[in-house]
């Protein structure tokens, strides 16, 4: 997964942030142009990480097409495949790629696989309280904190901040763990990439939303937790991470994410039920086009995620047969 991510981005090349914005979209992305006669209703069911982003897109899209009705529901990535299969949703935002089993269920009903669309880049952040002096963590250390199986090769169970090198009053303090609930794609992705598919400790406090994780950490000085990078507030800070023990640490910023240096970078997806060889009907096609346009990717920045490069966008548009 990580390899495909880095590959895709190297392929795309990086672009420099310009202009007045803190972060800007790839100037090569297409401008969205309104089309006539788009009407109907859309429903999106899926990821909670993408919930706000879908809502932002829906709002902006609605400005262009006021008579389009868009409903957004986000209770976790796991809810997207069943909704797509039953036809109750046209879009299934997911913060992780669909699993084999979910793909198969879909294929059983429709005879083809659902099509993923990469809509944003997220540096999945490991957050600590803003007063925490920690400078860097390796994935093995993170794994030893969160996992009881320690598949990443940590030698001992890490229970206190002293075990990862903090001194003074921090040394003896136990680490308090925050994470997402198991319906979340963030839960699954972190488990896969940061923990080598190991098991979470029972002491991880599972939160119902990405923002709830950040709020939990904000009010707990000795906490650590993972959540979408876009949910950062002034009360928490992100920990720079390294894939290798003793390697250089990279912070969860856009440059490191695009270069593939930050070890738990991921794409966020929206899955679409697109029959191969046939065109999407105008409403869905326009929404897809909008999401992967300059205006749509502005929304990505607004929600705190990183926009996708134009090469990724045009690749996905091609797969979906949308011009």
């Amino acid at each position, binding site marked *: 997964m990580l390899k495909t991510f880095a590959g895709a981005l190297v392929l795309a090349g990086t672009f420099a942030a310009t202009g*007045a*914005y*803190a*972060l800007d979209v790839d100037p090569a992305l297409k401008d969205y142009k*309104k089309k*006539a*006669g*788009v*009407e*109907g*209703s859309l*429903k999106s069911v899926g990821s*909670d990480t993408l*919930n*706000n*982003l879908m*809502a*932002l897109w*829906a*709002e902006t899209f*609605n400005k262009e097409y*006021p*008579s389009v*009705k*868009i*409903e*957004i*529901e*986000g*209770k976790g990535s796991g809810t997207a495949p069943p909704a797509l299969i039953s*036809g*109750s949703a*046209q879009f299934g935002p997911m913060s992780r790629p669909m699993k084999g089993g979910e793909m198969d269920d879909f294929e059983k009903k429709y005879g083809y696989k659902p099509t993923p669309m990469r809509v944003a880049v997220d540096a999945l952040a490991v957050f600590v309280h*803003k*007063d925490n*002096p920690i400078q860097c963590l390796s994935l093995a250390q993170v794994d030893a904190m969160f996992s009881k199986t320690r598949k990443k090769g940590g030698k001992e169970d890490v229970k206190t901040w002293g075990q990862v090198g903090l001194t003074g009053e921090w040394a003896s303090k136990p680490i308090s763990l925050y994470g997402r609930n198991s319906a979340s794609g963030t839960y699954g992705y972190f488990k896969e990439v940061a923990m080598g598919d190991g098991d979470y400790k029972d002491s991880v406090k599972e*939160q*119902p*939303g*990405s*923002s*709830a994780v*950040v*709020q939990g950490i*904000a009010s707990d000085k000795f906490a650590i937790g993972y959540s979408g990078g*876009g*949910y*950062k*507030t*002034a*009360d928490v800070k992100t920990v720079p991470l390294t894939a290798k023990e003793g390697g250089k640490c990279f912070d969860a910023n856009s440059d490191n994410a695009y270069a593939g240096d930050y070890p738990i970078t991921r794409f966020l997806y929206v899955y679409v039920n697109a029959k191969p060889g046939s065109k999407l009907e105008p409403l869905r096609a326009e929404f897809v086009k909008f999401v992967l346009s300059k205006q749509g990717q502005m929304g990505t*920045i*607004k*929600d*705190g995620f990183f926009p996708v490069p134009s090469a990724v966008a045009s690749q996905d548009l091609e797969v979906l047969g949308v011009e």
Partner: protein
Amino acid sequence: MTDAAALQQESVPMSKSTGRRTDMRSRGEPALWSLGGALAIGIIMILGFLALVFSNGVETFIPKPITVVTGIDGTVTAGEPFRSELFKPTPEDFAKASPDWQARIKDANGYANRTLYRMGNFDIYGEDFRWVPDFMAAKIEQPHGLVFVERMEWGPFVGTVKSIKVDGVERPFTTLDDTAFVKAHETARDRSKAIRKIERVGINDVNHALEQERLGLRKVELASGRNSAEYKDAEARLTGISAGLQQRYDALSADVQKLREINAGNTITLAEIGGREKTIEFSALVRAYAANDLSFAQKAGVYVSRWAEFLGSEPREANTEGGVFPAIFGTAAMTLLMVIVVAPFGVITALYLREYAQQGRLVSFVRISVNNLAGVPSIVYGVFGLGFFAYVLGGSIDALFYPERLPNPTFGTGGLLWSALTLALLTVPVVIVATEEALAAVPRSMREGSLACGASKWQTIKYIVLPRAMPGIMTGVILAMARGAGEVAPLMLVGVVKLAPELPVDGMFPFVHLERSFMHLGFHIFDVGFQSRNAEAGKPMVFVTTVLLIALVTLVNATAIVVRNRLKKRFAGSQF
């Protein structure tokens, strides 16, 4: 002396024995005290909770001054002070502090104060809140001329106004109260309203007509096949109609485009504290005020206009800004629909159980089941509602009446109707139990009197029993309403969504759309509190929405109680 001693000797056992005879326990005082204590604790907790919610909710919309902090390292932070707290600076930070501050921190056992500023300008900074420790601030001031600008997108902007452009002509900016500025803003907002009206009414009509025709064609296709003559006719008709509609659509879009172009020529250029500039259209400006130069009346004006926006408009920016009108409407509509369903069903069931059914084992079993129904976790009702109402009932309705819309479900997914039915199921035990109690409380003599006068059983129930029981029944319905309006968990499964600005009642035939998903205040609180991007900015909105939900439930209950008391009075008059 001896007398006294004897007296004392005597009196000691005496007092002991009297103490034993009328001790606290026999007088029931411990029970009284613990009951009173428990009640007091309960009331204090409720009042404390309400005070917390209200104080936070009421002050959220008060405009706050903008503070500019110049740091000792040269960074400048401008924003509304949000909250402050004590913390222990790290040794590195401590070393940066001036000797004077170092001494002060040492005096305070190593603690220092820091303040969180809401800086806004998220599009420029990439962050909108920042903590500044007191010892890092070289200068703290509240300069004149700084403005707080609320925008349609990207959240607030804090800074100064550089210049304005009215109809493409650059104008010097004086103050926010300047008539040129106010007028430019007003006309831009009017234009936006006009655009919205064209889009919502004109274009919506066109699109709706087109969609209806398309669905009609699909219906013909389903009924008589793609190669039939009817299909060909309908197809030809659709082509004709859609050409006409397309023309209307083009004309309307041209109007919108014209207004948009005018809007693009009316802009305001803002500069943040560091000098970086940003130009926005007047139409994207919600409200701007000079935060540090406001008089009391102006402050009140901003406060009132913020509440008006909150109550009357649609949410913006993924629900973190703007208003909650669709959520208020959804909550009210759902509760009303629920009462319409639950009241007759509950009352009829109770009537049958109390008045007609043979009292026996079966009836007591039913009664026990009803009582147990009240104890089932609400989420179970949600699962039932989704599985039975939405998928089974709704799926069948879709297959029977809306085959042309499939695979897009119409009733076969969560919606207002299914939510109301699920909550009706959840609250029906309350109504049944209350009604049964009320019926049982009607004196036997009254029934017998009525029967003795020759009234039939139904006449007795209709004219004697039900009116007498009405206040009790109303109490049950009120309780059911209160329970239903505050319930969120089952609704998340059967129709409440994060965003559904389309109201379930509108000007399109059939005017009431029971199949639509809706927004709900309770879910809105959960969504803003736990799912919004910036938890910090969302928190005040949580309190405001909670205040609103509590107020709404109180209002509904108060109305119902007034109605009940009127009924009571009316029937009291007809008593002997």
